[in-house]
């Protein structure tokens, strides 16, 4: 009997709930999409660096944390929000210079796995440095984004999520224009395709690397502020980056639209699974749903939704 109950909770009840209360379903999906936007933002940082330098930057999550810590630290010292943002952005650009000089340049032309290991080291370094500089406490972060619940035609939406989504949207649009329309963008796509050829037409690799790492740092800062306002700025923030990994697998490592769509799918998928299937499995689906989905993708579509199909010619 118990088994039948379980089957019912798995295959019948969720759909009955959805059918009976479509507004609630919509609410859950929208809530999930808005969280998903923030996953996208973290994933975007990975994609930018991977595309331009072929490095899988394990430290992206720590960069998010480090940026958020610096930002909140400056706020706590009485720096106004706009100044704190600009100062932190400058810190992230400085970090990009340092990383290029001390990590990327000495390791140029090494195997990708070696660069990957270097970014693991970088992530520990930033973690420790952040703790020394700003302490290990949880910092509350409030930059004045309203958090009132809003109701649109019977559907409840969190105002904060809506603002966060709008900010992400603007950022993504700006990046798209930057990469598609400017000569720096063209140079960057060239570097992503072929280092040697890019150098031969006069593109300085060094400058391009500094630009991408800076952009990734600033994207990380925005992600850190948004996540930090939601959860408080604390060291577990770098774990949010782990959620970006399934997003990348879904979207494809090399695709900016992939990172965005992947984030939206993971965000809404895990919320729907949690709310409707949570009772059947005793909850906590939200924690593993993204990874299970990523596994399925790895089995059937390893290049992700938008990634380049990898064909090795021998």
């Amino acid at each position, binding site marked *: 009997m118990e088994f039948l109950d379980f089957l019912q909770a798995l295959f019948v009840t969720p759909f009955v709930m959805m059918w009976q209360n479509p507004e609630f379903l919509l609410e859950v999906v929208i809530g999930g999409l808005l969280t998903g936007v923030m996953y996208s933002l973290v994933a975007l940082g990975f994609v930018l660096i991977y595309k331009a330098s072929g490095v899988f930057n394990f430290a992206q999550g720590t960069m998010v944390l480090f940026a958020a810590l610096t930002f909140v630290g400056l706020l706590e010292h009485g720096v106004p929000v706009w100044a704190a943002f600009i100062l932190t952005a400058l810190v992230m650009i400085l970090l990009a210079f340092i990383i290029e000089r001390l990590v990327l340049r000495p390791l140029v032309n090494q195997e990708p796995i070696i660069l990957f290991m270097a970014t693991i080291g970088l992530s520990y370094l930033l973690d420790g440095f952040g703790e020394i500089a700003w302490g290990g406490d949880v910092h509350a972060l409030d930059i004045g984004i309203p958090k009132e619940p809003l109701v649109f035609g019977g559907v409840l939406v969190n105002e904060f999520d809506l603002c966060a989504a709008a900010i992400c949207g603007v950022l993504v649009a700006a990046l798209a224009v930057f990469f598609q329309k400017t000569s720096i963008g*063209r140079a960057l796509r060239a570097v992503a*395709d072929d280092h*040697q*050829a890019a150098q*031969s*037409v*006069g593109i300085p690799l060094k400058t391009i690397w500094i630009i991408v790492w800076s952009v990734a740092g600033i994207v990380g800062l925005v992600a850190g502020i948004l996540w930090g306002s939601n959860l408080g700025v604390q060291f577990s923030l770098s774990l949010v980056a782990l959620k970006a990994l399934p997003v990348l697998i879904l979207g494809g490592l090399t695709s900016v639209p992939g990172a965005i769509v992947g984030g939206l799918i993971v965000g809404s998928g895990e919320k729907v699974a949690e709310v409707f299937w949570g009772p059947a499995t005793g909850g906590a689906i939200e924690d593993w749903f993204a990874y299970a989905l990523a596994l399925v993708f790895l089995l059937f579509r390893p290049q992700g939704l938008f990634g380049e199909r990898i064909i090795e010619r021998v």
Partner: protein
Amino acid sequence: MSGGKRIGEPILEVRSISLSFGGVRALAEVSLEIRAHEVLAIIGPNGAGKTSMLNVINGFYHPQEGTITFKGRARQRMRPHEAAAQGIARTFQNVALFRGMTTLDNIMTGRLLKMRRNFLWQALHWGPALTEELEHRVFVERIIDFLEIEAIRKTPVGQLPYGLQKRVELGRALAMEPELLLLDEPMAGMNVEEKEDMSRFVLDVNDEFGTTIALIEHDMGVVMDISDRVVVLDYGRKIADGTPGDVRANADVIDAYLGVAHDA
């Protein structure tokens, strides 16, 4: 097509260059010069150091010894993008194109160094940046006409056959308006017809724009036809330097190619 008519002073001089990788000596005290407006062929058996020579000239490799003088400025090492900025363009032995981009975009990357407008203007796609972009587009369209690749302007280059990819790569180098053009086996893997086309383009570039060309090629027929001068490398050393006729008659060259026993 043996030259002499408008060939000028050397624009590039390589002085006793030595280059090793660990214990492997790729180039040993090689000196050569490239004269303005000539077509110079660098030939030699496999592993003779021909590509290493090009890589030294455009800054991919930094020789341990020797100097390179380009347009009167001596240097021992130079980064590839600096070489590009000074007017050295090149193509690669195994086609190095930006595979995800179209033919047009690939050739446009050759104009990157010539673009002066601020990226904020470009992002707005408006004002001076738009005028500038259009000027470069006009230039690139002329190259596309010249190389007869109008039909593939919008095709991602990854989908093109090999011969056409080589042509696009030449186009990208031409877009840089180089003074010195380095071609690494421009005709490798081509059929006779494609080779004839490519030879014609190389000679036309040399004729019409006065571009100095240094090329590596294995097809001796092509080399003898299009070059003004030939340098022969073998085991990282220069063994001959002269007109195609001289080189063809040179005993060392014949030995190197026919495989007379070398002391290893």
